[in-house]
C-alpha cells in the first residue's frame, strides 16, 4: 500500500497537524509526502525523520500563497503520476478546502474529518463523527479506487523525529494555468479576546444588559482581566451577541478557572454549560436568582453599578 501525506507548513515549519499524520497506525505502508510552495526543500529533512520514505517537492511561486485553486491543480497533476492508494491531509482550513477538490478531480473516495484511520494490509478503515459528535460513523472503502482522507487535528500523537532517517527527495514539475483567484493580503483578526472555550476567565452577560451596546461594560471588564466574553442564551436570542459566545446546553460548554456571571439568572440550560467552572462569581439584582445557588461568590446588586467598579479596580491593580 502506498500512502501520500500532504504536508502543510508555515514560516518554514511543518504544521503540528501534519506531523501528527505520521503517528497514525499505517502498518507496513510505503509513506510518501508532498510539499508545495516556494523554496520548500528544507522541509524534506524533517519529513524524512518523521517517517516519509520519499518526499516530493512541488516548488513554484504560484503555490506560495497556498490558494485552494493552485494546490488543487498542482496535486491533481502530481497524484496520478505517483498513483498512491491513499491521500492523507489534516482536517485544517487548507485540508478541508483541498480534499473535496482532489476527490472530485480524481474520481476518488472521500472521508473527511476522521478521528481514527488505520491501515491493515490492503484494508483502510476510518471513523468520523456525525451529528456533532453524538455518534460515530465507521467508513469502509468498497473498491480499490483512490481514497482521500482528512484527519482531525490531535487524532494521533506526532512521532519523535528519528535523526538517523532520511527520505529520498524528488522534485516534481507541474504546469499551472493562469489563476482565477489570488491571495492579496492576510489580515489578522482584531479580536484580541480569547475564545470562551479556551479562556481561563470568562465574563458572561445576560439579557438584563438590555442592548448590544451595553455589552461594552462587560467587554471593558473582560479586557481588564484578560477574560473572554460569554453570553446567555437569552442575550443571544435578543440579538445582543453572536451565537459563538453563547454558553449553555445549546451553546458552548466551558470550564474556566473563574466564571463571572453578570445579570444571568442561571437557567438550568445555562448552568449545564458552566457548572464545572472552578470558581463561580455571580452578580445579580435578584437575591433569589438560581445562579447564586451555584456561585462561590455572589454580589446582589445592579451590574451597571458593580461591573464598572470591578473594571476600575482591575485597572488600578494592573497599573500598580
Amino acid at each position, binding site marked *: 500500500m502506498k500512502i501520500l501525506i500532504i504536508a502543510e507548513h508555515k514560516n518554514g515549519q511543518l504544521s503540528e497537524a501534519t506531523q501528527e499524520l505520521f503517528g497514525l497506525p499505517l502498518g507496513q505502508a510505503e509513506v510518501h509526502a508532498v510539499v508545495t510552495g516556494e523554496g520548500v526543500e528544507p522541509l524534506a529533512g524533517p519529513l524524512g525523520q518523521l517517517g516519509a520514505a520519499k518526499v516530493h517537492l512541488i516548488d513554484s511561486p504560484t503555490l506560495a500563497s497556498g490558494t485552494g485553486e493552485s494546490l488543487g491543480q498542482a496535486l491533481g497533476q502530481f497524484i496520478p503520476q505517483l498513483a498512491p492508494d491513499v491521500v492523507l491531509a489534516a482536517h485544517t482550513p487548507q485540508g478541508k478546502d483541498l480534499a473535496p477538490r482532489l476527490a472530485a478531480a480524481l474520481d476518488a473516495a472521500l472521508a473527511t474529518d476522521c478521528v481514527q484511520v488505520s491501515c491493515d494490509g490492503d484494508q483502510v478503515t476510518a471513523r468520523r463523527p456525525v451529528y456533532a459528535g453524538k455518534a460515530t460513523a465507521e467508513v469502509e472503502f468498497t473498491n480499490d479506487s483512490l481514497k482521500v482522507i482528512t484527519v482531525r487535528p490531535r487524532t494521533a500523537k506526532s512521532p519523535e523525529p528519528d535523526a538517523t532517517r532520511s527520505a529520498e527527495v524528488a522534485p516534481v514539475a507541474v504546469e499551472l494555468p493562469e489563476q482565477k483567484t489570488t491571495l492579496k493580503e492576510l489580515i489578522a483578526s482584531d479580536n484580541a479576546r480569547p475564545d470562551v472555550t479556551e479562556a481561563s476567565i470568562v465574563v458572561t452577560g445576560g439579557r438584563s444588559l438590555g442592548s448590544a451596546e451595553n455589552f461594552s461594560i462587560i467587554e471593558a471588564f473582560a479586557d481588564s482581566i484578560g477574560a473572554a466574553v460569554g453570553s446567555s442564551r437569552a442575550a443571544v436570542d435578543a440579538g445582543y451577541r453572536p451565537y459563538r459566545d453563547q454558553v449553555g*446546553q445549546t451553546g458552548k460548554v466551558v470550564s474556566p478557572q473563574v466564571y463571572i456571571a453578570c445579570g444571568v439568572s442561571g437557567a438550568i*440550560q445555562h448552568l449545564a454549560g458552566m457548572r464545572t467552572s472552578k470558581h463561580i462569581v455571580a452578580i445579580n439584582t435578584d437575591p433569589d436568582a*438560581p445562579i447564586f445557588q451555584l456561585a462561590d461568590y455572589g454580589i446582589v446588586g445592579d451590574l451597571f453599578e458593580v461591573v464598572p467598579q470591578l473594571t476600575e479596580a482591575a485597572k488600578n491593580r494592573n497599573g500598580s
Partner: protein
Amino acid sequence: MDTIGDAEIVVIGGGGIGCGVLHSLCQAGKTDVLLLEKNEALASETTSQAAGLVGQVRTSIERVELAMWSVKTFSEMEAEPEAKPGWRQVGSLRVALTDERVAEFEQMKSVADKAGLETAFISNDEARAKWPMFDFSPAKSVLWCPSDGYLQPNDLAMAYAHRARKKGARLATGVPVEGIRTENGRVTGIDTSQGVIACDTVINAAGAHAWHIAKMAGLHLPIFPVRHEYFVSVDAYGMQPELPVMRVPDASLYLRAEINGLLLGGWEPESLSLKPDDFENGQTPPRVEEDWDVMGWFIEQIAPLYGKAADLGVRTIFKGWPTFVPDGKFIIGESRKLKGFVMAGGCNAHGVSGSAGIGRHVVESMLESSPSDYVRSLSPDRFLDSKWDAAEAQTRAKRIYETYYALGH
C-alpha cells in the same frame, strides 16, 4: 435559622404549573401564599426541558379559551421590563398531509372562529414564504394562527415567581414536603424538612411527583410520567428566531427555530413510561438516556418536507418526564374526599403553554361559587369515585402520548 412560617395556601412544586398557579392566586387577590420546591432552584425538572410551544388551535372551545388566556397573560408579562418569559409571538403553521386531517383542520377552524381566535387557511406558496427551506408540495392544507408562538419555559417560571413575589407571595426552595396533615376530613398543614407549616389549602402542582403528594393525602390518582424528547440542531441555513412554530400532525411532529438551529420533536409510536412508584418522593425521576432511534424517527418523519434534516448535526437533546393521565385531561380542583386539597396537574405535556390558563382554572375551582362545567369535569374525583386498574390506566396514559396528534384526539 429563619422559619418558613404558615400560610393560607401552600403550593407544592416550583415548575411552570406551580409558579403559574401562584401567580394566578396573587392576581385573584390571594397573597398569603407560599410555594415550596424540593430542588435548590425553581423549574429544574420537567419545565426546564420543555420546548415552550404555545398553540391555541384546539378541537374544543374550552381548550382554545384556556390557551388564549395563557397567550394574553404571556403578552402582558413580556411587556414588563423586569422579568420576561421570552415570549415570541411568531405565529404558527399547521400542515395537513391527508384529507382526513384537512377535515379536522376545518373543524378546528370553526372552533377557533367561535372562540374569537384569528386563524386562516393559507396557500402552499404563502407557507413557503414563511418557511422558505421547506417543501410544502405534499401539504393538502395549511392553517395559520398569527397569535401563536413560543417562549422560554424557565424564564416563564421565573417571571411568574417574580410577579407573585412582588405581590407578597413567598417562595422557598430546597424544601421537600414529607407529609400532609389532616383533621376531620380537611387539610390543616404539611410536614416539611424544615418543620410543620399550618395552612388551610394545599395545591398539588408537583408534576412527576404529584402522585406521591396525592398519596400522602390518601388519594390515589393515575398520573404517569411518559418520556418526551426533542433535539436542537447546529446552525442551519435559513433558521432564525422569527420563524413561525410548525406542527405536522400527520407526521406526529412539531418544530421551530431555536436561535439559528432547528428544534424538532414529536410523539413516537412506542413510548416509554414509568409507574409513579418507580421512584421515591424525594428523588428526581430516573435520568432519561438519549434515544437515537427516536431522533432518527423524527428525521424520517420530516424528510418529505425537509430532507436536509438528515444532514444536520445535533447540538443537544432535551428530555424529561411530563405526566399523562388515562383520559388525557388535566386534573384540576379540590377533591370532595379531602377539603383543602387541590390538584393542579396531569398536564399531558401542555403544562408550560397551559400554565396561565390552568392557574386561572385552579383559582376558579377554589374561589368561584359555581365553576364552569368544564372546570368541574377536570376534578380529581373522576378517578377517586371508582376503582381503576393500574396497568390499564398506564396503557391508556401512554396511548394519550402516542396519539398526541391523532385524529379525533
